[in-house]
């Protein structure tokens, strides 16, 4: 039988997909199976395809994606925990010609940064907010998040979230959709190729709408945390489909009138 060599496979005509140049060569610190890497790539692919590397300023949060600026090859600022929308507000108002986005996790955006998120959305800042919701504090070791599901276990609710004691999960995306300052509010995931493509289209749409002065584009990506959830990546994706999606249904919540 004839063997096919590596050289025979790796040829320009066989190349169907490659990593965007707007991701740096730094090795990502994310756990295998985590959605952050894919979400980072989607944002950077959009920036590359739109040709706006020199026009884009990103704001990183505190949380697992605190080092987003190590991977995204654009000018970036690292915010204090929860304050990214305040930074983005000033950046966009002082440099209105730029594309400005924040990249925030659920603890950052929906707990400590609730005020900054809601007021930036309500003022209608022309920024994009990428919200990664995995229902847990990953970086600090798996504590309960504002988005942890009822009954879901975390290190600070080891017997499951009892809403009578710990309160209810917060649906920030539904909340900001009620505010006049948001133009596009949508929820996606990046756990299958089809979902990745949809999420990327939403990110691009958000960049375009906010840059056109329509207000905040708010894109939630429901993601997994296999380490925090104590599952294999495959189990985590399945658990996310079965438990997270019914509570946080995917799809557009608010779209601008055509």
């Amino acid at each position: 039988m004839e063997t096919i060599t590596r050289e025979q496979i790796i040829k320009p005509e066989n190349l169907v997909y490659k990593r965007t140049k707007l991701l740096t060569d730094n090795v990502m610190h994310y756990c295998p199976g985590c959605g952050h890497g894919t979400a980072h790539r989607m944002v950077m692919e959009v920036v590359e395809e739109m040709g706006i590397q020199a026009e884009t300023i990103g704001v990183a949060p505190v949380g697992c994606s605190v080092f987003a600026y190590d991977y995204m090859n654009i000018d970036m600022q690292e915010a204090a925990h929860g304050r990214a929308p305040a930074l983005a507000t000033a950046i966009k108002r002082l440099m209105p010609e730029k594309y400005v986005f924040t990249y925030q996790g659920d603890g950052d955006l929906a707990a400590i940064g609730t005020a900054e998120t809601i007021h930036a959305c309500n003022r209608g800042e022309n920024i994009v907010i990428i919200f990664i919701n995995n229902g847990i504090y990953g970086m600090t070791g798996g504590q309960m998040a504002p988005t942890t599901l009822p009954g879901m276990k975390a290190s600070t609710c080891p017997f499951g979230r009892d809403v009578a004691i710990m309160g209810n999960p917060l649906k920030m995306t539904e909340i900001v959709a009620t505010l006049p300052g948001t133009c596009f509010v949508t929820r996606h995931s990046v756990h299958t190729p089809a979902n990745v493509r949809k999420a990327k289209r939403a990110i691009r749409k958000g960049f375009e709408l906010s840059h056109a002065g329509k207000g905040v584009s708010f894109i939630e990506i429901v993601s997994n945390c296999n380490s925090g959830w104590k599952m294999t990546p495959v189990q985590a994706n399945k658990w996310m489909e079965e438990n997270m999606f019914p509570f946080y249904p995917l799809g557009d919540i608010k779209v601008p009138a055509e």
Partner: protein
Amino acid sequence: MKELRLMKGNDAIAEAAIRCGTDGYFGYPITPQSEILEYLMDQKPYETTGMVVLQAESEVAAINMVYGGASCGKKCMTSSSSPGISLKQEGISYIAGAELPCLIVNVVRGGPGLGTIQPSQGDYFQATKGGGHGDYRLIVLAPASVQEMSDFVSLGFELAFKYRNPTMILSDGVIGQMMEKVELQETKPRWTKEEIVKMSPWATTGKTPDRERNIITSLDLDPARQEKHVMKLDRKFKEIEANEVRYEKINCDDAEYLFVAFGSSARICQKSMDIARAKGIKVGLLRPITLWPFPYKPLFELAGQVKGMLTVEMNLGQMVEDVRLAVNGKVRVEHYGRVGGIIPTPDEIVEVLETKIIGG
């Protein structure tokens, strides 16, 4: 031609901000400094110089807006009063850690807690010794007149950009609310994009092909690198201490006694000095203008000349610790202060000088 105007201290800060080419002001209302935001909103500089003025949802948001704007190399400022400045401390620490230039105005009121809305100098420790977490310093300017409220805006920005460090104007309710004659500076245009890129090549102005990406952060999980960074900050602080001490000496040449006071207390001490000198008491005044870096050296020199020093502060004794450090036991230093929003009278200060220092 000189442009003179009768102005309130807070209004003078706002007018000076427009005139010195400030790019962004972000604030939240709090007594006794709300006139700064009100004046700016009334003047609408966004229609003339293009300055952004925004009422934020909190002092926390306002200081973080300053962080975002300062990271772009823009001249950004905020103002507040004591309880609001406490809220800003997180942001101030991040700004100092990330080495960003900006201007923070504190029109101090009585504390602790909600305290009063009347004047105080109770935030001296907070301004000069930290306030936020970690090893950092603020350049602290203490105006004693409405003229200095105006002048210290451009000076504050100048020092902030020279050293890439936040500057604080530590004023108080007296200076903020009183009206005096001010000579206004000429209006300077805001910096152009090209000027900002040239002046602040570190700023997040958009990654162009000719340079690496710019990252503004105060985070480094590698202890060796973080130590290197903090030591670099320390070298900068030592340079500021060597170059930027500012103070005013009045009637010190023949002084046998010395008042040490800043801000509105220094104004009151000027009157006390006149009363005392009319009685034949040779008293002088040293007024620190920079509270950090503090004028340790001139105070040490005067310690060999005078028989005693009295610090007058509207607090329970904060700057007095720096004065005692300065004189290093060489001369007696006492403190006199009123708190809770009470302003000392010139006569009671003279009485304290006579009883505690001269007769003490």
